[in-house]
């Protein structure tokens, strides 16, 4: 490399600096430092005249490294870098010393101190700029395809939007049908639209319907759906992931099935339908709900005895009981995780599981669903009679340090939605909500609370001390501790507003993807505020309830945000990577895997030969591996050990 020719540009900042710092003595001091070929003072470096002077000096003195002593790098760093690259100097060969913020302003009462400090800082910058290395760029081709894991609301929204942008989308769903938890809800807040019953109809008639989207997903040529599938193996990096999917047999080809129902008639096996929480019965070949999409029958592997009756009668030969699981290999540019949540199981809490009349909100949603098992009638599970007194208990399994410390965000809105719809259908039913705090976090949700109060829903603030079954009254007796008083409430149906926990295979998926989870086992994001949807692996995003319980509007927001992020990264078909990354000195590397363990972005991998390797696309230049490396083999470009020690020496010398 050619000899360093350093130019030092000192800005007066129109007197802001020059009135306090003795720039003449600073200039004389700098001149004596070796390799400095040019020092000059300028009035305003950020103005056009200053910029022109900078360009001229670089040209005339053939400068290849530049030190700018002016204001904070946060203000004009980008502009100075642009000037350097315009003049054919690598923009990394720049060091900005903020003598205004660090010297002139804080020590405005003591010019001597300010000047001494400025000298020290400029000298350190010159020492540092000498050691800087040129940083190049590499271009990595990116695949224009995206894997979406989870076919709930978030997954469907993301898949559709990505397909609109022209990406090939692979949608992987672990269940046999799309729709996720949204399918089980009767109506959805805040607009009280029907969540499911309009699914199979045409979208023109029901524009507001959420699940018109599912049909669009099914017909979109750019979206390929894998139902009953799980992600088994992932390797690679942003722009080039290799994914292996295990597609479990569905036994029914959903492209051939027309849902005529002949198979269901001949099936000899009958079991309770878990989609309706046992409120209805189903066969081993069944349709979980009349609105399932894809509109197909599915076979329950556990209960099916493979008698073959359905296979015989199917008029379209859609059933194949000998289907085997298959492995499918995909190449994708990015991965979106939308695995969602599931309801917390409040087993043995308040007598749930012992008394059939203690149910959860999701079960109540099935009952209130007009197309659900009871046709929208509210009944007691034990005797099928209409309940007269309903008590809802909030915060079951959430905001409890012993179980789940977090607030599940949406249970309050769900409870209010159900209370309102019960009151509207039968105003004589008595509904009481026992709550710790009512937390409504969305737009217009407060309206719900007011409407509930208007409709006559009772609110009791307090904690439930116990639930007893009174055999004489044939009612539940609920003891509530409210502000030091004990209240007794009677009910013949208790609804538990359970919290939400991550999807059942989130842990497994996180292991496969190498993504970290939070302590509550939801997917962790790299930064809670500024990168809420990015995981620690570059190119893997998370949205919807997989990163914490969210309502539908928030889920859709997040899905759209993730789509724009993916489109930005992959859209050009190639990814430009700046090479200011961690690099390995292979002579020193001992293959101890410390870098592999410490890298928060999984960019460092130890090869079979026992030498560490950094994937440039995944590295985010933090230097943690360099600090942890015991052999000093790992170094961060421009923050190498020798470069840092140069700064330390410079700063500490007087």
């Amino acid at each position, binding site marked *: 490399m050619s000899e360093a020719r350093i130019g030092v540009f000192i800005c007066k900042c129109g007197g802001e600096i020059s009135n306090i710092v003795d720039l003449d003595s600073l200039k004389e001091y700098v001149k004596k430092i070796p390799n400095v070929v040019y020092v000059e003072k300028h009035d305003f470096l950020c103005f056009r005249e200053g910029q022109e002077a900078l360009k001229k000096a670089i040209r005339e003195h053939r400068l290849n490294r530049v030190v700018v002593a002016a204001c*904070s790098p*946060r203000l004009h760093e980008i502009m100075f870098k642009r000037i350097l690259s315009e003049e054919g100097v690598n923009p990394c060969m720049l060091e900005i010393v*903020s003598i205004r*913020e*660090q010297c002139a*302003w*804080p*020590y*405005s009462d003591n010019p001597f*101190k300010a000047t*001494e*400090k400025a000298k*020290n800082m400029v000298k350190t910058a010159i020492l540092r700029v000498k050691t800087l290395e040129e940083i190049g760029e590499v271009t990595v081709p990116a695949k224009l395809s995206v894997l979406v894991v989870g076919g709930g609301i978030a997954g469907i929204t993301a898949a559709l939007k990505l397909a609109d942008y022209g990406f090939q989308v692979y949608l992987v769903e672990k269940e046999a049908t799309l729709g996720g938890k949204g399918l089980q809800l009767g109506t959805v807040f805040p607009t009280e639209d029907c969540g499911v019953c309009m699914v199979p109809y045409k979208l023109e008639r029901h524009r507001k319907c959420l699940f018109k989207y599912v049909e669009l997903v099914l017909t979109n040529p750019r979206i390929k759906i894998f139902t009953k599938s799980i992600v088994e193996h992932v390797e690679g990096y942003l722009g080039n992931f290799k994914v292996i999917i295990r597609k479990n047999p569905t036994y029914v080809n959903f492209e051939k099935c027309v849902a005529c129902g002949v198979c269901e008639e001949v099936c000899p096996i009958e079991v309770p339908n878990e989609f309706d929480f046992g409120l209805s019965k189903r066969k081993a070949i069944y349709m979980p709900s009349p609105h399932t999409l894809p509109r197909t029958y599915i076979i329950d592997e556990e209960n099916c005895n493979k008698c073959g009756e359905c296979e015989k009668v199917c008029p379209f030969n859609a059933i194949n009981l000998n289907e085997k699981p298959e492995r499918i290999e995909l190449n994708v540019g990015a991965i979106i995780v939308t695995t969602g949540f599931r309801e917390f199981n409040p087993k043995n809490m308040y007598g749930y599981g012992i008394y059939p009349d203690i149910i959860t909100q999701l079960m109540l949603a099935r009952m209130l669903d007009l197309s659900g098992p009871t046709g929208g009638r509210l009944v007691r599970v034990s005797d099928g009679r209409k309940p007269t007194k309903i008590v809802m208990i909030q915060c079951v399994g959430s905001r409890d340090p012993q179980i789940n410390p977090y607030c599940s965000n949406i249970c309050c809105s769900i409870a209010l939605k159900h209370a309102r719809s019960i009151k509207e259908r039968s105003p004589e039913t008595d509904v009481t909500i026992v709550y710790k705090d009512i937390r409504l976090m969305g737009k217009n949700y407060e309206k719900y609370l007011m409407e509930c109060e208007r409709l006559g829903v009772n609110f009791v603030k307090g904690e439930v001390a116990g639930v007893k079954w009174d055999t004489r009254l044939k009612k539940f007796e609920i003891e509530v501790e409210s502000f030091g008083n004990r209240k007794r409430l009677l009910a013949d149906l208790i609804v538990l507003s359970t919290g939400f926990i991550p999807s059942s295979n989130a842990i497994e998926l996180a292991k496969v993807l190498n993504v*970290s989870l939070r302590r509550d086992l939801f997917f962790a994001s*790299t*930064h*809670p505020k500024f990168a809420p949807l990015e995981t*620690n692996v570059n190119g893997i995003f998370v949205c919807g309830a997989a990163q914490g319980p969210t309502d539908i509007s928030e889920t859709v927001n997040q899905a759209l945000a993730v789509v724009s992020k993916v489109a930005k990264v992959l859209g050009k078909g190639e990814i430009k990577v700046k090479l200011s990354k961690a690099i390995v000195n292979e002579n020193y590397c001992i293959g101890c895997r410390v870098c592999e363990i*410490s890298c*928060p*972005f999984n960019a460092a991998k130890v090869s079979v030969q026992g030498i560490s390797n950094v994937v440039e696309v995944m590295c*985010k*230049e*933090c*230097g*943690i591996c*360099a*600090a*942890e490396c015991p052999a*000093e083999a790992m170094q*961060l470009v421009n*923050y190498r*050990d020798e470069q*840092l*020690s140069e*700064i*330390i*020496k410079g*700063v*500490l*010398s007087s």
Partner: protein
Amino acid sequence: MKEFKPLILAFLCENSAYRAIDVACMRKISYLESIRVIKVPCSGRISSTHILQAFSNGADGVIIFGCLKGGCNFVDGNLRTQFRVKKLKETLDTVGLGGDRLEMYLVGFCEAGKILKYMNDFYMKIKEIGPNPLKSKEVFK
């Protein structure tokens, strides 16, 4: 005898503490000039070697500022350094340099007042402890 003025090296994470100091200085709030500042991409970049190097180059104390817990741009760089600092303090105690000469704080990027207070307190503490014993020996220079 001349009054002892401790020379202190401060490593600032450019995502939090450096910005905070920048903003504070824009409001013309000064900090002690014998606290020398180095900007690093993440507090996780600072290895034990750098801290020891600072001591061998004559620093009387080293203070490190990282982002708040959970706020690190690189997930857990701040916590890793905090752990290293904890271990290194024990080592410094053993070799006789004194673990009190090293300190790490986690601060947010709008907590300039807190940073200045920590710096001041640390400065006073080092002043009490006295100069770095390595300075007179010049073994490492």
